[in-house]
């Protein structure tokens, strides 16, 4: 097996706040293989967006990477000067955001914005950069690309803009694309189109995709493998199919239970009781223990490590059978 494209080891990102310093992610480890479609799932505050920003080298004061390593294609990224990261960003790793409505600069035509990265990283002329932009717009499925390239963002729909964002991200043929909730702000039908586009581009370009989302449905359809995050830590890591068939961690189980079932009517949708613990008042043991149905004495004593279970990993010390029908 070839070495992973992205390898995150024991990454801790801390933020200084008025209440003191807190760890948004704490000892996070995962890897993504070349060409893999990896889903990162978690609720708000679980640290999934911070993870994405850390990998892109975008953590700025008051935040800092206090320990750990991020290796991309064998190169260490933590501690690299910003100028070197700038050469990497957009060229070898790219990112798209949640809000296609505001992710484009309103005062320039979209073609110019796509061409900007190509001109900077690939030293293309103005002309060649523009041609490349038009080519990319066609590739992401925008009809009449040459004409659309001259359009300003406000002249395009949300789905179109997200396509433009993808074109912008992929214009320099990066090896990895981080998509941070790319479909959250879109209509469901457009969501499906964008996700299909991502999958198609990924196989076409051999792209590694990190899809960050809180929507398990999105992950189920697209990802090869899923990482579930809770309170700044990985609680479960598993191939998508087995995650959905038999979750190992009660948190994953709870998330799956709270997805509405189209076949059966239920009085009340099961929810996970309680809220994510404040990073300033973390429980002494397992971070999920206060909300867990299966909690036992030792759960509250010490934090369970992420342990391998048949090619998967879970941060639950219990061997639960959460098999779903």
């Amino acid at each position, binding site marked *: 097996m070839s070495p992973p494209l992205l390898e995150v080891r024991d990454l801790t990102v801390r933020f200084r706040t008025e209440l003191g310093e807190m760890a948004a992610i704490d000892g996070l480890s995962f890897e993504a293989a070349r060409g893999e479609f990896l889903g990162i799932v978690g609720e708000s505050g679980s640290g999934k967006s911070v993870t994405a920003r850390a990998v*892109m080298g*975008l953590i700025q004061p008051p935040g800092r990477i206090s320990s750990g390593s991020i290796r991309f294609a064998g190169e260490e990224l933590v501690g690299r000067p*910003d*100028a070197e990261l*700038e*050469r*990497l*960003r*957009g*060229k070898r790793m*790219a*990112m*798209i*955001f949640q*809000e296609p409505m*505001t*992710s*484009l*600069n*309103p*005062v*320039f035509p979209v073609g110019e914005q796509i061409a*900007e*990265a190509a001109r*900077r*990283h690939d030293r293309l002329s103005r002309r060649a950069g523009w041609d490349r932009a038009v080519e990319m717009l066609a590739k992401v499925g925008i009809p009449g690309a040459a004409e659309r390239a001259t359009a300003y963002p406000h002249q395009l729909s949300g789905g179109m803009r997200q396509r433009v*964002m993808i074109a*912008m*991200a992929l214009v320099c043929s990066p090896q990895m694309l981080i998509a941070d909730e790319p479909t959250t702000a879109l209509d469901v039908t457009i969501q499906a189109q964008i996700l299909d586009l991502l999958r198609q581009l990924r196989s076409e370009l051999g792209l590694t995709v990190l899809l960050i989302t809180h929507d398990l449905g999105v992950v189920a359809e697209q990802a090869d493998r899923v990482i579930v995050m809770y309170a700044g830590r990985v609680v479960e890591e598993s191939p998508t199919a087995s995650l959905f068939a038999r979750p190992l961690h009660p948190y994953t189980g709870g998330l799956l239970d709270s997805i509405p079932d189209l076949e059966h009517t239920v009085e009340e949708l099961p929810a996970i009781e309680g809220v994510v613990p404040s990073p300033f008042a973390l429980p002494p043991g397992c971070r999920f223990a206060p909300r867990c149905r299966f909690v036992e004495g030792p759960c509250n004593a010490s934090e369970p490590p992420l342990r391998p279970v048949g090619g998967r990993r879970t941060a639950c010390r219990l061997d639960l059978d959460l098999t779903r029908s």
Partner: protein
Amino acid sequence: MPIRRLLRHRLFVTGLSLFLLVVVAAIAAEWIASHNPTRMNMRLRFTAPGDPRFLLGTDAFGRDILARLAHGAQVSLRIGVMVVVFTGVFGTLFGALSGYFRRLDNPIMRVMDAFMAFPAIMLAIAIAAALGPSELNVVIALAAVYTPRTARIVRASVLVVREAEFVQAARVAGAGDTRILLGHVLPNSLAPLIVQLTFIFAYSVLAEAVLSFLGVGPAPPTPTWGNMIADGRNFIREAPWITLMPGIAISITVLGLNLLGDGLRDVLDPRMKVTSS
């Protein structure tokens, strides 16, 4: 598109017309007023407006008021333009730096606050008096007074724009600070600045008149509107037109620029929209 919307904005068009009137008067000063604006003629002093030779009358020294107004317009507009350029450049520089690089924010903005603590016209008088009466010194004084305000406005919009998602998007595409500030943040922060600069133009015209009136502006016999009002104030009962004419000129210019600025604001900044076109 915005240009068409501007031209449909009735107040903007009114303001623009008034302002253009002054601009044309300044440019065509040599033609519309055949008289030398500084040549005195004691026999023709206090000619009332309406005289075929002196359309707007003459002043206490028999100088043609129309000629002096037109040449005064040159001085006022020249000062206005220079103040706008200086404040625009320095206000943008300081505002952008302190809005974008948060470490520079306090040092720069506290100095700006110190300038703003003085009443504007007092500070301008003090600076102009210290540097001596000349056109350039008036410009320096007014630019020093208006730069802090402009810097504040630019800083405020930079603070908003730098958090925009498209700035993040540019950063993940590998753009550095310079590129982001000049290419993405500033172009999106300019609308309020442009509006503010038209108002600063108006204030400068007014302030220059005040400084001239008080004798710290361009020295007489330079025809400035402020000088003209100062000259005429002793004869305000006998020959009110000497003060009235430059007063009207100042009003037209300031009113025109204000309407212009209001119109620009309505069109460029939809959130502030109050008047309909």
